[in-house]
């Protein structure tokens, strides 16, 4: 199935990419992250990273649906 992956801040710099379509077997948000981390070697897993699906904050264990847009947020630092 197809999902869009979007990268922000540090992740965008590490992947050199803002957004890409991933065609894969499907699974959880965490599994998609693992897949794109294998593709982009410089993308480092961060324990404090957050994920949103279709503009709503979500858990890493959420199972993705066809066409979901998955936002990968590196550790946040507002304020």
């Amino acid at each position, binding site marked *: 199935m197809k999902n869009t992956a979007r990268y922000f801040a540090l992740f965008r710099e590490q992947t050199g990419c803002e957004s890409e379509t991933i065609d894969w077997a499907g699974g959880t948000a965490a599994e998609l992250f693992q897949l794109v981390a294998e593709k982009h070697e410089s993308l480092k897993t961060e324990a*404090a990273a957050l994920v949103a699906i279709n503009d709503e904050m979500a858990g890493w264990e959420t199972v993705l649906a066809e066409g979901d847009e998955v936002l990968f947020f590196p550790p*946040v630092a507002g304020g």
Partner: protein
Amino acid sequence: MKFAVSNTPIDVAAVRKAVADNSCGALAVFEGWIRDHNEGQAVVRLEYEVYRPVAEKEGARIIDEALEKFGVSHALCIHREGLLELGEVAVIVCVSSPHRGEAFEACRYIIDETKTRLPIWKKEHYVTGGSEWVNCEQCASAGHSHGDH
């Protein structure tokens, strides 16, 4: 309006005025300022990246939680995005309520949640010419974990 992202300087007096209410005896305010140093490095300016669609929704949610949890009368949070110079206001939280205890607690809650839950990132630009994305303060100091992957 409860939460907003601004790409122009924050009008502190206007935010304060927005929570004014004659039934309130207490106002608690927090401002985050651009500091000239971080972890031993001299900083010249900061750059905030904000993903607005989620930040605005989740920011309004934080304010609603504070209103409900602490029973305060009014609460407002404005966060900057873009390039900020030393001394500029990066974020302001204003909370008004009849008494002071709950105003302090709600104000603290809002800034703590804002710093850890909203998709906002800052890049420090150093005197030496380099720049770096800043990690969330809890993670940097204590291996604090938000996710589980």
